[in-house]
């Protein structure tokens, strides 16, 4: 339903998104996960045609968003990062305007407004002036706006921002209920949100996609991935090289080294095999002493940080 091919977007020569490719199947919910400034909003704006790509191609429902923008936009409901509201209008007046510019036939207008207002839980708010609404209610009006016309594709930029916990839960339930009916791309910084609502997750950092997979797949990868801290009696460099040669080891870091003793941290990639016995053998075979070994699985948050930052987590906070 949505195809993004080698999307690059530069602002004044600086790339905000570089060579991003992914696709979303019909009825699928894709979560976009990434820290601030990662390029989530920029990617979504390229999908909706608000910002044309510097290079690359985006198609929605088979229509190129740049070459046939009107056809593509007819299929998209979009909730931008800042809900695009006219403060002086009433909720119903605003939604009626949105319905008209989206081409909802006049005869269906009343029905359509009732439907989206009920879905976004603002059915009693029709007569209220938007500027007097609380932030959470504005977000709901923004969501209602995206749903007008029942578009097959929904692009939601941080849909649960500003909502209370009950409403967050409701919106997540709502998105879940769309599975199979709407093709959804949503962005968030919140991991559990992705786990609860999405079929697939794309993790984006510094304008590049660093991982794509089902939440279960990611979780599995996390659970298998392990950090093992080893205390050995060996020269640090040699020990690190030996451990690095063990199959399934992704990375070895020297935490501490003094005379003949070293403390090393080994990171095992998610291959599934238990690497601990192999690690122990690698040390013992070379005639070194093994004083201790402690392994810990990485939390979801750790992996997220791991995937999206250059600095090792838990280091000195920048001040």
């Amino acid at each position, binding site marked *: 339903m949505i195809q993004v091919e080698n999307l690059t977007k530069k602002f004044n020569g600086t790339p905000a998104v570089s060579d991003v490719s992914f696709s979303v199947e019909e009825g699928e919910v894709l979560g976009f996960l990434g820290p601030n400034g990662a390029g989530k909003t920029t990617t979504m*704006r390229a999908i909706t045609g608000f*910002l*044309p790509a510097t290079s690359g191609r985006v198609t929605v429902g088979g229509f190129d968003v740049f070459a046939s923008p009107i056809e593509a936009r007819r299929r*998209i409901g979009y909730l*931008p990062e*800042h809900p695009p509201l006219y403060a002086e*209008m009433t909720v119903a007046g605003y939604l009626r305007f949105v319905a*008209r*510019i989206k081409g909802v036939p006049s005869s269906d207008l009343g029905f359509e407004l009732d439907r989206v207002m009920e879905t976004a839980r603002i059915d009693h708010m029709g007569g209220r002036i938007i500027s007097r609404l609380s932030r959470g209610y504005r977000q709901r009006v923004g969501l209602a706006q995206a749903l007008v016309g029942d578009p097959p594709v929904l692009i939601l930029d941080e849909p649960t921002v500003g909502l209370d916990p009950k409403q967050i839960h409701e919106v997540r339930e709502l998105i879940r209920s769309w599975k199979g009916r709407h093709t959804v791309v949503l962005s968030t910084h919140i991991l559990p949100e992705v786990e609860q609502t999405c079929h697939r997750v794309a993790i984006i950092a510094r304008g590049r996609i660093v991982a794509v997979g089902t939440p279960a797949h990611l979780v599995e990868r996390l659970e298998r991935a392990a950090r093992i801290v080893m205390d050995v009696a060996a020269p640090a460099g040699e020990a690190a090289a030996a451990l690095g040669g063990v199959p399934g080891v992704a990375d070895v870091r020297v935490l501490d080294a003094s005379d003949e003793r070293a403390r090393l941290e080994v990171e095992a990639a998610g291959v599934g095999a238990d690497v601990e016995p192999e690690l122990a053998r690698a040390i013992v075979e070379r005639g070194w002493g093994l004083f201790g070994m402690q392994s810990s699985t990485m939390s979801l948050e750790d992996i997220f940080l791991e995937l999206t930052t250059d600095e090792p987590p838990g280091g000195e906070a920048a001040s």
Partner: protein
Amino acid sequence: MRNVLTIVGRELRSYFVSPVAYVVLGVFVLLSGVFFQAILVQTLQMVQTIQAQSFGGTPQPVDVPGEISRQYFGTLGVILLFMLPMITMGLFSEERKRGTIELLLTAPVTDLQLVAGKFGAAVAFYAVLLGVTLAPISTLFLYADPAVGPLVTAYLGLFLYGASLLALGLFVSTLTENQIAAGVMTFGLILWLWIVDVLGGAAGGTMRAVLTRLSILTPLGDFMNGVLAVSNLVFYMSLAALGLFLTYRSIDAWRWKG
């Protein structure tokens, strides 16, 4: 077409819930009313003076209603210089500031329809302003028998004059997110287009002729005298077309800049 009308409708409604429309309308009604009154009194005094000076002989005929309406329209042209920037200043700048441009530019509406809708709303509001001036003009019909032809051409002239300045103002409102800045820039631009013929006065020869020709008020004078010249129609229409074209291009440029 439906898209254009939807945008016009929303814009007009928002004019009338914001204070801007009422301020513009109020100030315009007040100023034009005061000037009409002053022009009326002045013209009547002038007629009396002429009659008194002509003693026994037949006085020179004076087209009193014609004189009044010409002066009145001339004054309107100047008052409008101040009012027109306020009509267009927020049209695009506010959309950008509030982020609603993201809704408009991702809706199944072409850029051309968007520009047409915004321009249509500005012109419709301007038509309301012009409509207000029909009241004093119609009183002339109660007391005299003004020639209808020059009145029709004068209104046509004022309409085209306003529309061309609104198109330029629309363009300026795409240049900034700050509507006050857009208003001031538009005012400056209009003022400059107005006084080029003053600059022309300092120059001489063909330069002077060209600069006088460029002043936005020059063709208006012809319209008020009942003269309908193709060159004047073309002048205002091409100015409007230029403004709309620049607006269209400017929206396209934002998309790329982001």
